[in-house]
């Protein structure tokens, strides 16, 4: 899902605790400023879902997660239509903003990789 450059940057930063500690508050502030949390959304609700990979991952979500996702998106739509944001106590905190979808996306991507690998295999 995430591009390779982003991946590499993230790895670079995680490997250096000082740099990580310096950047973390900035990143947290940035995420807050983006504003999606004030509409009650998680970061992974913003993923572009118009791809077969994400569609399949969404189908694999456990029922509870899928229900919550649909609820959040509806609530955000309602906010957007009425040009309001949620009351402060309903904002998503940074602790709640967890990657709930990416494990499923990664699983699907891994399967696709494996299939590609076998399709391109030559028997020696």
């Amino acid at each position, binding site marked *: 899902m995430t591009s390779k450059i982003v991946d590499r940057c993230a790895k670079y930063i995680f490997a250096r605790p000082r740099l990580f500690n310096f950047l973390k508050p900035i990143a947290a502030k940035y995420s807050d400023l983006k504003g999606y949390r004030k509409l009650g959304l998680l970061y992974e609700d913003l993923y572009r879902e118009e791809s077969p990979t994400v569609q399949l991952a969404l*189908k*694999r979500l456990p029922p509870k997660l899928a229900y919550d996702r649909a609820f959040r998106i509806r609530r955000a739509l309602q906010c957007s239509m009425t040009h309001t944001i949620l009351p402060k106590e309903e904002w998503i905190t940074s602790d709640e903003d967890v990657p709930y979808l990416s494990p499923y996306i990664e*699983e699907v991507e891994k*399967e696709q990789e*494996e299939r590609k690998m*076998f399709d391109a*295999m030559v*028997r020696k």
Partner: protein
Amino acid sequence: MFSLRNAVARGAPRQCLKSSSLLPLRHARTFASPASTLPTYEVSEANGVKVVSKDTGSPTASLAVVIRAGSRYQPLPGLAHALEHFAFKATSKRSSLFITREVELMGGILETSLSRENIVYKARFLRGDLPYFVELLGDAMTKPVFNAHEFKEQVIPTMEHESHVAYSNPSYFALEAAHAVAYHQGLGLDQLSYVRKDFATREIALYASLTFNKSNFAVVGSGVPHSDLVKYTTEFFGGAKTGEAADAESSAYYGGENRVWSRAGNAVVIAFPGSAGGAAFKPELSVLSYLLGGQSNIKWSHGSSLVGKVLDKYRTVTAASKNITYSDTGLFYVTVAGQAEELKNALPGVVEAIKSLKNVKAEDVKRAIQNAKFDVYAAAEDNALSLEAIGQSVIATGGIPQIEQTIKAIEGVTLDSVKKAATALLANKAAVGVVGDLHILPYACDLGLTV
């Protein structure tokens, strides 16, 4: 010109046949005599796992894990079917795609089957690939991962499809209906659940953990050296749990009639309590099923078995008789299927044929014994046949009668013992399953059966 050539050429082919050096044709009738190299079953334990095999010496081999986890042991309808369909899906070592592709590369075949008694995971492969396939089956038994998405995306659709296909076959449906009245609970319940499947991967995993234990399954090989099989089983099945063999409800026989509407076609199953498998097997019942017959051994003929003779007049009607062996009981049955009107006309004759088993003729018994012997030998030679029956016997009794013993038992069947067995059989109430156009198909009591 032509007439001359014809005159010269006439008789040439016949002349060819006569020269015995080219084509030694023997017209003397030779009966099946036991081959000098009959494979023998070897049974042993590898790390607590029961292993049984016969070495036919052929270049291909078969390996099966027979698990006593068929539908009679399932706590929820359809659970055994789902577990069967989870075979060769992801294990903690390999993904299901990995297994598929690898086996394709080795030229192997993976199969599964489900019965009321067992789930069978089976592999057929080239003889040299034995270690790989023992490992594969060992992984399937000891390291299965029951992924929710595989259940949803692969298992459920194939399960639905299979049960739909099965219930579109009136003969299958009628046999299920006969089982229901014959045993009520346990063996009587549906093998595939057509109506209700209320479970998720958690329940399947639980059922697997209950049934995948060392006293509840057997590794059955054919065309493999026994010592090798024991060695690899010790290595790859070592991680299996120890536990108790699955316990089934008692299989009391009731009998009765079950009539079901179906658009798929028409079939009638007439069943009686038969013989259990393994050491308790009664060869008389096997001979009786060949006497009754119905299936044809000769292309385009109904054969001269008792039911075969009846069916000669009816073009669309087919029949088959069999004794299904379970671990503690058996069901002896005849399936008759065909167009409703013709089936209705044929049925009285079929019932007459069943009743005439009590006074069969000696030459018919001889023919049936030959048929029975042929099938036993054919199964012994073949690697892929009868692995389930072998495994079932080994799980239940710890042993399996050798082929020679089975043959001897069949040869020991006499006219009197067949008549006695038939009288005992027909003294029971029948279990009748009728499927199809019930406007036309007759009731069992009208056919002269006691239900």
